């Protein structure tokens, strides 16, 4: 009887270990950031790209509408690729686009905007990348969708594409 109990305990234990290791080996070891998030907007101070005046977060997101915060830089090649799509999205009255110029040379950034057009209602300067960290960004380009309750509801890492634009349009509808 005692022997049977020992075998039972060992079998249960080995099964437990097998399940744990199987589960561990089965799950991907590649880190994938979550896209569906719900976090509060960060409180920050920044400089305005056009006027070079100090502004804070409370004066940026004033209207009760959806906002897009797009992190871009003139040195970023994928940003050029996504720019026409942002220009198209800026025509939509239901959403406002805020640009975050990331670790960039101001003159080059201005040339970029003059050359490709300005889809943003306001552009903030992020000289040292700390503002991007406040948003939880990894790099550039990155896009955040903010709802009417001033919550970041989606994060798009990398350049946006037509599929993402459709997804955004569907959410703000």
């Amino acid at each position: 009887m005692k022997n049977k109990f020992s075998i039972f305990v060992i079998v249960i234990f080995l099964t437990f270990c097998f399940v744990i290791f199987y589960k561990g080996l089965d799950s991907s070891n590649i880190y994938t950031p979550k896209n569906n998030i719900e976090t509060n907007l960060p409180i920050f101070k920044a400089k305005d790209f056009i006027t070079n005046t100090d502004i804070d977060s409370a004066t940026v997101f004033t209207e009760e509408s959806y906002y897009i915060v797009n992190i871009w830089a003139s040195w970023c090649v994928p940003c050029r690729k996504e720019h026409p799509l942002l220009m198209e999205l800026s025509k939509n009255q239901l959403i406002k686009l805020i640009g975050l110029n990331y670790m960039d040379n101001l003159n080059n950034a201005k040339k970029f905007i003059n050359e490709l057009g300005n889809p943003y209602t306001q552009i903030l300067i992020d000289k040292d990348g700390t503002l991007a960290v406040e948003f939880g960004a990894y790099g550039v380009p990155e896009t955040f969708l903010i709802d009417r309750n001033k919550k970041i509801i989606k994060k798009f890492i990398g350049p946006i594409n037509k599929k993402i634009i459709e997804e955004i349009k569907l959410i703000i509808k």
Partner: protein
Amino acid sequence: MKYLNIFLIIFLLIGFSQLKSEEKNSELKNKILKNIRCLICQGQSVYDSESDFASSIKLIVNEKINQGMSEDQVYKFLREKYGNWVIYDPKLSKNSYILWLLPLLLFFVGGAIISKILIFRN
């Protein structure tokens, strides 16, 4: 002359305490940076990395420490932005409880088996 000496002593004391506090902040900053994962690098901590992401995190951590945040508060801030993955030393959560409890469980099961064998032999 007496007042000058007192002034000098106070001045030096303030200077030393300032230096000591800066040294303490720098130690805390390094400790935190070594425990933060550089999310865009391969197997590097923010402390070891020179990437744009790491340099921004270094600035943010420095800023938060200067604002008076504690080590746990800085981790909490980063966890809110990037999730648990950003910290090398994960806290006990519903996703990691097996990781924490398994060694303990193994220890007790092993101990029980050994004691059972010993009792059986005696």
